[in-house]
């Protein structure tokens, strides 16, 4: 499971519930990251046990489970990170995930002999309440919201973040802070460090 130790500080600074989320891991992203982390853990652990104990029983299903686990881990990490580059990787992993659940779902219906044991994605994720089918859709919608926000100039949060990255910021949280200082300085013509 991801260890988001750097997360709390920026969120605690401004407490208004109406404020826009500051990162892909805050706001609705908090829920998304939690569910992704859950699936990353369960798919990976399940695949590890199956491959370790009875690989010969259903090799295709188990390898697909392992692949799904890796995709979930990448999505969890990149959504938690939330930098422009991480968001691009997240878009790819969510798309792969959606394609995977559709392809494996159809495949598992058509060729049952190939899947004597279930994967996370077989039956379109029916063993997991169809969450694997819905999750990448919400992930992609959330990432689309962010890419739109990054493009529009009036939303300061993200443009500041991007500016922070070009300035060579270290961590994501620091990026926002540094960039906001830069923006304040640029806008007012004087330093506003508090």
């Amino acid at each position, binding site marked *: *499971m991801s260890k*988001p130790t750097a*997360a*709390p500080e920026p*969120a*605690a600074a401004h*407490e208004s*519930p109406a404020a826009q*989320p500051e990162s892909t891991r*805050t*706001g*609705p*992203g*908090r*829920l998304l*990251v*939690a*569910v992704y*982390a*859950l699936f990353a*853990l*369960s798919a990976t*652990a*399940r695949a590890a*046990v199956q491959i*370790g*104990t009875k690989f010969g029983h259903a090799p295709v299903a188990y390898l697909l489970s392992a692949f799904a686990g890796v995709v979930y881990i990448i999505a969890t990490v990149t959504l938690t990170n939330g930098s422009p580059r991480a968001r691009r990787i997240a878009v790819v992993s969510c798309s792969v995930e959606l394609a995977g659940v559709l392809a494996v779902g159809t495949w598992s219906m058509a060729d049952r002999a190939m899947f004597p044991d279930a994967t996370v994605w077989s039956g379109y994720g029916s*063993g997991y*309440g169809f969450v694997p089918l819905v999750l990448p859709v919400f992930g992609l919608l959330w990432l689309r919201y962010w890419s739109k926000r990054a493009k529009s100039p009036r939303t300061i949060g993200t443009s500041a973040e991007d500016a922070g990255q070009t300035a060579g910021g270290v961590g994501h949280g620091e990026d926002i802070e540094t960039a906001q200082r830069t923006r304040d300085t640029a806008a007012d013509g004087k330093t506003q460090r508090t």
Partner: protein
Amino acid sequence: MVRDGPSRRAGPRFQTALVTTFGSKMLSVNGAVSTTIIVAGLVLAGYALLMTAFNRRMSVPLLAALGVLEILLCIEVGIVVAKLADGGRPPGGLATLIGYLIAIPIVPVFAGFWGLVERTRWGSAVVAVAGLVAAILMVRLHEIWPAIHV
């Protein structure tokens, strides 16, 4: 969704479980704990979802409910470990069961942390997921080892 899971793959081992759980008048203690966890988890999920709908961030009652859930889950893990120590072995695989025993107590702790750092309604939504997951984990535990009654 939760109830559909086991019935779809009704095999011989599940039928024995049905006889011992639902048919029996003497509901064993561990069955009571699992049932309490399922009910508590679903109630917590409902309450947390209500808080999300009302745009409330995570509160002390939610945190307390997570604490109660954590205690119940730890009792459940203790019961399963005692069964293992007695020499019982799950038909669903020992490795899977141990994985569940490790994962189960982490769920409320992680949800509490992840919900608290989020100062909006979405913190409550994370708690709702934890309650739901606790309930689902109990059903899965019963699938792995029908001796653990639900």
